[in-house]
């Protein structure tokens, strides 16, 4: 596969390390009422769609960027690649 890195352009997927569902960005609040359940769902339950999937790839043999790749799990077609840092900020994560 080829991932079109937002900064570096097309790179072979073998340069990257895969983590999984980009929902892993949405880490729950440790102090919330239902923190235990929230962390269980965050840690263990997945949509696992057959079709479009947002997922985290790390450019291990490259610039060390974490990317959010939107990829079709049936055709492997990649429709979007973003820097995970931007996505995380857009989803309201800060510090």
């Amino acid at each position, binding site marked *: 596969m080829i991932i079109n890195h937002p*900064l*570096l352009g097309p*790179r*072979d997927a*073998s*340069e990257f390390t895969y983590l999984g569902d980009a929902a892993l960005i949405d880490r729950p609040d440790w102090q919330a009422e239902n923190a235990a359940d929230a962390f269980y769902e965050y840690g263990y339950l997945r949509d696992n769609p057959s079709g479009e999937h947002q997922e985290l790839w790390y450019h*291990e*043999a*490259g*610039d*060390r*960027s974490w990317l959010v790749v939107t990829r079709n799990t049936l055709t492997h077609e990649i429709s979007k690649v973003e*820097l995970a*840092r931007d996505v995380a900020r857009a989803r309201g994560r800060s510090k």
Partner: protein
Amino acid sequence: MHDLVAITALGGTEPRVDTIAGVTCTEVPGVALASVAARLGEEANCVKALGDLIEAPTPEVGQWAGATISAFWSGPDQWMVEAPFESHEDLPGQTKAAMAGTASVTEQTDGWARFDLSGDNISSVLELLCQLDLRKISAGSADRCSIHHIGCFVLCRTPEHFSIYGPRSSAGSLHHAIVTAMRSAL
């Protein structure tokens, strides 16, 4: 001045040189390195300060620039600064001062082993080593890639001169990979 004797990444006292069919691979220990990573919110100032240090526009993504002191892009808001070891063993200190708090600076001098390839037809060697699209590479390019499972930087000084940086501890394996590719391709 201290009295400890340095050895090269390949374990010698003199740099290793191999020439095959007009292409030469030279071990280059005489280089000092420091990494520069912009502090959050200081990106612009960092770019400016780095430009002043290398007396050239700070390199864009996938580029290197500079002269005596040069730098190449290594990641988002991150660069590696290069300079001759003899004259700049304290490159990290010098860089830290120059960046004036706009960036985190870390000594990388001995984190890396460098091998320079010079001669014609280097591309036929590189195409056996890494996935880079050599059609897109010209003087000024600096790319991260994987060579025989070793994470490296490949810098194009001129089409007849490339520098390859690999982790110092893997210098022997990297050197073996380069020289066997030379024997195979040339």
